[in-house]
């Protein structure tokens, strides 16, 4: 048996202390120790992106990182994207375009899209495709996901091909952000 490691991380703007086994991943710590189950466990080889989180603003696969490596770092998970009761524009755009089908990949898609827009606020379609290339959608709902990201980046254009009817944006949605742990804590 190896010694446990004490890890101090800032998650969604809040300082958290966890004690982990060295072979536990950041994904394990987020889900099992901190209860932040928005970050999904899927392929565990860094191909699907369901476990994507932001570290220092950059997207990483939390399944390919030991929890111990995160000591002293600032992490944003999907739970930290909304501000109070207000969804991140990306979350709203995903709802407006119907980008979530089964929904399993969506937290990772949102987090990767957040990193993309922070770096490239007005991406081209090709830049969105490349920025989200590490996030697989098993429903193959890529068109709506790309449309949502383009719409969040530039609400004036709906991201859909020319001539397609624009969908209403900003309508109230039954989704209740108050039920999401850590919502409203970040980004600070």
């Amino acid at each position, binding site marked *: 048996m190896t010694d446990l490691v004490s890890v101090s991380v800032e998650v969604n703007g809040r300082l958290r202390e966890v004690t982990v086994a060295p072979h536990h991943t950041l994904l394990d710590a987020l889900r099992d120790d901190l209860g932040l189950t928005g970050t999904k466990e899927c392929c565990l080889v*860094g191909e699907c992106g369901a476990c994507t989180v932001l570290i220092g603003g950059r997207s990483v696969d939390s399944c390919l990182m030991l929890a111990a490596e995160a000591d002293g770092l600032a992490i944003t998970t999907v739970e930290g994207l909304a501000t109070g009761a207000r969804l991140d524009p990306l979350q709203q755009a995903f709802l407006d375009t119907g980008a979530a089908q089964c929904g399993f990949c969506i937290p990772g898609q949102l987090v990767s899209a957040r990193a993309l827009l922070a770096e490239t606020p007005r991406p081209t379609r090709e830049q969105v495709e490349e920025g989200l290339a590490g996030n697989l959608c098993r429903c193959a709902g890529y068109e709506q996901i790309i449309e949502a990201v383009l719409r969040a980046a530039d609400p004036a254009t709906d991201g859909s091909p020319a001539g397609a009817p624009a969908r209403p944006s900003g309508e109230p949605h039954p989704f209740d952000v108050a039920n999401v742990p850590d919502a409203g804590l970040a980004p600070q």
Partner: protein
Amino acid sequence: MRPFAYERPTAIRDVVGLLGVHGPAARLLAGGTDLIIRLRDGSIRPDVVVDVKRVLDLSDAISVETDRLVIGARTVMTDIGAHPVVRRDFAALADAAMVVGSAQIRNRATLAGNLCNASPAADTAPGLLVFGAVVIVVGPTGERRIPLDDFFVRSGVTSLGPGEMVAAIELPLPAVPRGSAHVRRTRRRGHDLASVTLAAIVEADGVARIAYGSVGPRPLRGAVTADALLDANLGDEARDRLLNQLFAGASPSPTSLRASPDYRLAMLRVLARRAIDAARARLEAGPG
């Protein structure tokens, strides 16, 4: 994942010390994008994982010195692909860094880790080989410099000795204007290992060189210079003879799932042409 102890030293000498104490039972962790997968699937079973990301005298940045570019061992692919001097003077390396994995992988994966992993399909290897990269290694007896061509032995094996680690990768700055490009073939668009990976460099004085990988146990430099490929009037026979010489070292595995040997050898020739054309176009377009 099988349990292991975790060490996070802050100085290179302490990393070397840990490697000395634990020998092959210790594994270095940089980006972790290969290591964590192998820890999880049990193909490696170290007693100690030594995280080098907080080693203060191991750089995570690229510095431009009088005659060379120095890439610290903790530098990640994203930063290599975005660096203005890499993009201008080592474009093939910038190309290659930006096709490794996905954004998430490139934000963690280090160039040094890619080299130490010694995959024959490593996309950064041809780009570094054409530029004459040198690997700076530190170990129990001090520092030594290994030309990258002597660093690769075979798949998964490098010439690093016991207790040694990579500290940096050096690339000589260009003496004459040049263009370079990296190209690859994959089974599908997007995130895939290369079936063939190749880099070319064309210099203003008419010298052209290539390096390639994923067609044998290790990445290779072209056995001869590829200058004659710049000649649009080169006859078919002469071209075939040159290509045979260039790729004399290619020995693709007949058991690979990614592509057959015949396909790989045919694609090497296609990619050589494309990379040289792209490199020449960049040379003609000038810096910037």
